[in-house]
């Protein structure tokens, strides 16, 4: 199976990536689907596969030092706590956080954003305050603000998406002249692939007195992201989209924000002193980690981050950029195929329509040929509707994908095209 990888991977070669060796580390890439076909996994924006290093880190935790962290002083608990906190340090380093305590473990991007909406938004926002989002936000960076707006009377404003899939930055500047308290913006669109100029947008928001939350679900896994450099106030991302286990993610926030924010979930280990009718809170980050955390998840995510570091996020980005370029060229060969998103800065999520064939039929057809792509609204319903569709198809890449995967997809799409064009009752 993996030998095919070596056939067409000029980009990988150039970057010194040994695709066969790399794929060998991912057990899932060795399974077959639909009667022995190699699995061509192109749904990485939804979730990525896991290298053995991560699977083993999780299993080893359960086998060798499983205990509840922070709560007990016996040996196993001390080991578990040390591993859990070491994972926090790994994550802090990975995103260039100035302090380890600024890393809060959550279930994922969605919980991280909801935490900010409750812990920061409920206390701060007043009727008439504005939250600026963009039209390319994932539901997870949209619904929490809709709910917050309903609770507080704040207003949502949207930065329009231009025809090429970039944000209308002029419109953004105008919006900033309003009473904006928060800008919540995705770093990379999971639909259009657009990479937004977050660094500049943060600077402008700060000049206007607004804080900025960056949805890093599609950026942190794919290219170097440094919170100190971006100067953002909040960053949310998910472990499962970057080789990590399910059920773990991160909220980074500035120390002063975390310290002043209200806790979100109440429960064990987020407290300092508890009376019957009142309580005081633990230090950050523990104030935001009520209840038993996902220890195995955090430790597995730490392992994922260390695994990624052996390649470097820059290599990963260059590999994906080249592959995406290749994919776009090849896809455009397919008759009736239209790609959405042509930003000059874009990552490896390529959404498309195939004229006259519903995306679900497309995905089903290519799946039958061993190729996993996504079809649907990709959790950006309002934007998809605005583009004149109810659903699209999407191929999205990760480090272990190469030209052979794209070639397989393109061949399958040609077959799909033929089937629907020629089949007739």
């Amino acid at each position, binding site marked *: 199976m993996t030998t095919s990888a070596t056939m067409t991977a000029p980009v990988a070669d150039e970057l010194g990536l040994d695709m066969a060796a790399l794929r060998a580390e991912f057990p899932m890439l060795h399974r077959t689907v639909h009667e022995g076909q190699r699995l061509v996994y192109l749904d990485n924006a939804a979730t990525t596969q896991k290298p053995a290093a991560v699977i083993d880190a999780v299993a080893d935790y359960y086998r060798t030092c499983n205990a509840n962290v922070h709560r007990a002083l016996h040996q196993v608990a001390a080991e578990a706590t040390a591993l859990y906190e070491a994972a926090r340090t790994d994550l802090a380093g990975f995103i260039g956080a100035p302090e380890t305590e600024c890393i809060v473990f959550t279930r994922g991007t969605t919980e991280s954003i909801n935490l900010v909406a409750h812990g920061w938004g409920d206390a701060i926002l007043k009727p008439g305050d504005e939250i600026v989002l963009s039209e390319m936000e994932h539901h997870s960076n949209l619904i929490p603000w809709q709910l917050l707006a309903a609770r507080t009377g704040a207003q949502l404003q949207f930065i329009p998406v231009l025809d090429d899939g970039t944000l209308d930055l002029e419109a953004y500047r105008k919006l900033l002249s309003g009473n904006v308290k928060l800008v919540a913006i995705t770093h990379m669109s999971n639909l259009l692939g657009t990479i937004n100029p977050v660094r500049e947008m943060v600077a402008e928001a700060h000049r206007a007195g607004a804080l900025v939350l960056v949805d890093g679900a599609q950026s942190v896994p794919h290219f170097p992201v440094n919170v100190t450099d971006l100067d953002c106030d909040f960053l949310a991302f998910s472990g499962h989209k970057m080789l990590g286990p399910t059920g773990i993610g991160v909220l980074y926030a500035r120390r002063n924000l975390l310290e002043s924010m209200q806790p979100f979930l109440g429960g064990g280990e987020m407290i300092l002193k508890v009376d019957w009718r009142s309580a005081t809170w633990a230090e950050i980050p523990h104030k935001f980690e009520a209840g038993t955390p996902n220890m195995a998840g955090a430790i597995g995510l730490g392992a994922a981050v260390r695994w990624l570091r052996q390649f470097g996020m820059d290599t990963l980005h260059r590999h994906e950029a080249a592959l995406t370029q290749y994919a776009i060229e090849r896809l455009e060969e397919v008759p009736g195929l239209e790609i959405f998103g042509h930003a000059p800065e874009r990552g490896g999520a390529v959404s498309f329509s195939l004229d006259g064939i*519903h995306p*679900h*039929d497309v995905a089903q057809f290519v799946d039958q040929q061993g190729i996993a792509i996504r*079809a649907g*609204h990709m959790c950006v319903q309002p934007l998809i509707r605005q583009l004149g569709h109810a659903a699209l198809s999407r191929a999205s890449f990760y480090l272990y994908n190469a030209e052979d995967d794209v070639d397989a997809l393109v061949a399958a799409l040609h077959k799909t095209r033929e089937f*629907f064009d020629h089949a*007739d009752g």
Partner: protein
Amino acid sequence: MQMDDLYQEMIIDHYKHPRHAATLTDEEVLVDEENPTCGDRIRLTATVAEDGTVSDIRYDANGCAISVASASMMAETLVGRPVGEAREQIRDFVELMRGRKEIDPSELGDLVALEGVKNFPMRIKCATMCWHAVEHALNQLATA
């Protein structure tokens, strides 16, 4: 390719030439149902004659091959039947899709082409949506 299981010729035929499909005016529409998750949408109208038979079904369906073909076959199957029998047929079809009922293939007529859908759990809704829609339309006509 093992797609024949799902995309049988019959399905593609109904998809490309949907029977009883029509452009409906807003006034005509009895039910307008949508599955925003996949973008399937059906606007539908039905009439029950004096004698209690389903005398007409017309619809405007937007969706994948499975959902459009299913609407086409649904209309073809139900038009002309007594309402009670139509309801039974609807229930049977939905149960069939959910894998909760076996039906003798000879009784299914063209619908037999949709039987394969039950092996694709993610697509079952595509096939059943229009059947739910027509059921809702019949309910409306009954209470009207």
